[in-house]
């Protein structure tokens, strides 16, 4: 087609380059939204069939961010694979590390010292806050409230700074490892968390003032993208999306891991199943996270922060100058890593987006035989067509933001 013909075609059909096809008789247009689109939160492509502004069909097409991380894990030793899983759902990096480390802990059949467990919960709850802050910002932005994005990212930055203080990195930390955590909390961690807690309880009030009773926001989210309880159950929804549709399910309470059985917190459940209900559930969850963090800071025990078994943990640097055995252990752990007994295990934690599972198989060697991560975004994204079909394109934007899919986790 020459450019003149192309212009002719555009003038005749009146549509742009993203349109796949147009059926003039039925007045149906099929077009691509994404994979590069500001409202699809990453590289999600939606094949839409539109009747005017109404979505008649919606087919998510994924895989644009697939980098073969599960295969990659099979090439690393057990310790190194932590650095791969942390890059999957990059906004919930500590949840990813936690679920993989818990799976390996169970295969190794080892104990994690209490302080290590508390630190794991501390980091993953702060992570839940920062992940929900990104969701808050993008949900607001997609609804036209740009200031929400700035507020959300401003507070997330404080938590990222704390991550950097503890782990040395802002994202992709690789901090939670089989046996505990890599390093103890640094001096001054307690005032830092206290200041985050004081700041956040004030700031959540501000977020609520900005959106919760905002007439434009209410108009665009109430009754929009309704997911019924039956649909949510059938399509395997979990996390805030399930809880906004009336499914009372939270792994922190129902299958407690680490120290969650010692902590008290509420699990918010609503029945409306619309975008606004998902908004409310996440806002309450942020307050609940603050409650959990309060208890974690107060209850933080002393002692070891990781399992000190010399066959699992490299000896301290000072030992290397004195002990030949320490040098040998260090060398073996650094070059080939530890072996894990043959077996299989499925571990699950409640990530900010829902049930994050890790199915791990060991063949008895120094590398995993198979690591499969059941990512909540992957399952939750299947809810997009039932929630979006019959609504307007503008509502579709609200629905995507409320599902909060992270494409790094979906595609892995």
């Amino acid at each position, binding site marked *: 087609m020459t450019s003149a013909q192309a212009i002719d075609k555009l003038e005749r059909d009146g549509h742009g380059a993203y349109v796949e096809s147009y059926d003039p008789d039925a007045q149906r247009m099929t077009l691509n939204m994404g994979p590069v689109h500001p409202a699809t939160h990453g590289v999600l492509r939606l094949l839409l069939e539109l009747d005017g502004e109404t979505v008649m069909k919606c087919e998510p097409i994924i895989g644009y961010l697939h980098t073969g991380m599960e295969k990659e894990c099979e090439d690393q030793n057990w310790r190194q694979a932590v650095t791969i899983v942390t890059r999957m759902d990059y906004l919930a990096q500590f949840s990813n590390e936690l679920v993989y480390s818990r799976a390996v802990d169970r295969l190794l059949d080892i104990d994690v010292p209490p302080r290590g467990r508390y630190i794991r919960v501390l980091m993953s709850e702060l992570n839940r806050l920062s992940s929900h802050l990104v969701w808050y910002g993008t949900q607001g932005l997609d609804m036209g409230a740009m200031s929400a994005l700035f507020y959300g990212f401003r507070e997330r930055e404080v938590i990222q700074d704390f991550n950097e203080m503890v782990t040395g990195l802002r994202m992709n930390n690789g901090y939670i490892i089989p046996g505990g955590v890599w390093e103890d909390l640094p001096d001054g961690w307690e005032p830092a968390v206290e200041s985050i807690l004081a700041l956040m309880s004030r700031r959540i009030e501000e977020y609520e003032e900005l959106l919760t009773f905002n007439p434009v926001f209410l108009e665009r989210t109430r009754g929009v993208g309704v997911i019924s309880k039956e649909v949510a159950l059938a399509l395997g929804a979990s996390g805030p999306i399930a809880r906004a549709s009336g499914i009372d399910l939270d792994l922190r309470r129902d299958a407690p891991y680490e120290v969650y059985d010692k902590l008290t917190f509420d699990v918010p459940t609503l029945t409306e199943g619309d975008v606004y209900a998902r908004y409310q559930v996440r806002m309450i969850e942020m307050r609940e996270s603050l409650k959990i963090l309060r208890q974690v800071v107060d209850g933080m025990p002393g002692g070891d922060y990781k399992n000190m078994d010399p066959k699992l943990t490299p000896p301290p640097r000072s030992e290397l100058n004195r002990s030949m055995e320490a040098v040998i252990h260090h060398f073996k752990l650094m070059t080939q890593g530890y072996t894990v007994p043959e077996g299989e295990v499925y571990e699950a934690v409640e990530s900010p987006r829902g049930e994050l599972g890790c199915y791990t198989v060991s063949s008895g060697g120094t590398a995993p035989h198979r690591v499969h991560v*059941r990512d909540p975004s*992957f*399952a939750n994204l299947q809810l997009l067509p039932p929630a979006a079909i019959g609504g307007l394109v503008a509502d579709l934007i609200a629905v995507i933001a409320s599902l909060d899919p992270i494409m790094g986790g979906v595609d892995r």
Partner: protein
Amino acid sequence: MRSGWTMAGNWRERARTLKDEGWWLVSYCGLDALGLRGGSRFEAVAQFRHATEGHRCIHVVAEGDPPTIPSIAAIWPTANWMEREAYDMFGIVFEGHPALTRILMPDDWEGWPLRKDYGVGKVTVEFVPQPFLQIDAPGQASETDGAGREVDRLGQSGAPERHWGTAPGAADTAHEGSK
């Protein structure tokens, strides 16, 4: 972990029973058991959860070539994408699936990436010889090869000398070889 095994032939019936008992599917993935144990090679591993009875795991042994398992997407719609992923990664065919196509890899991809006999790094990367990036004005050619052509330090004839800058105080010795 509570694990069970079932052959592909009995799978759909078993899945229906599980659903009637109140179990719901949370995860469903492929597994290549090559080198893991004797017997069957391809399996699909399903994880179930129950409101009161906790969690259980069921291995479904694939039969035939290509490995085949009946689809349970009609029983649990959430299995739809999970089966597509297992097909995409292991080439396990789920009979009766509404649209069994690749989901993560491109549609025209050949091979099944997560199989154990599919090594990493088998995709060849094409290197096109490029002249070296010239940052400064071309320096003096450093050496000549046997035929009298000028070559730089890496033996690439005709390419301008790479100049990365010199450390303070090292300026006198950095280009010693070229003088």
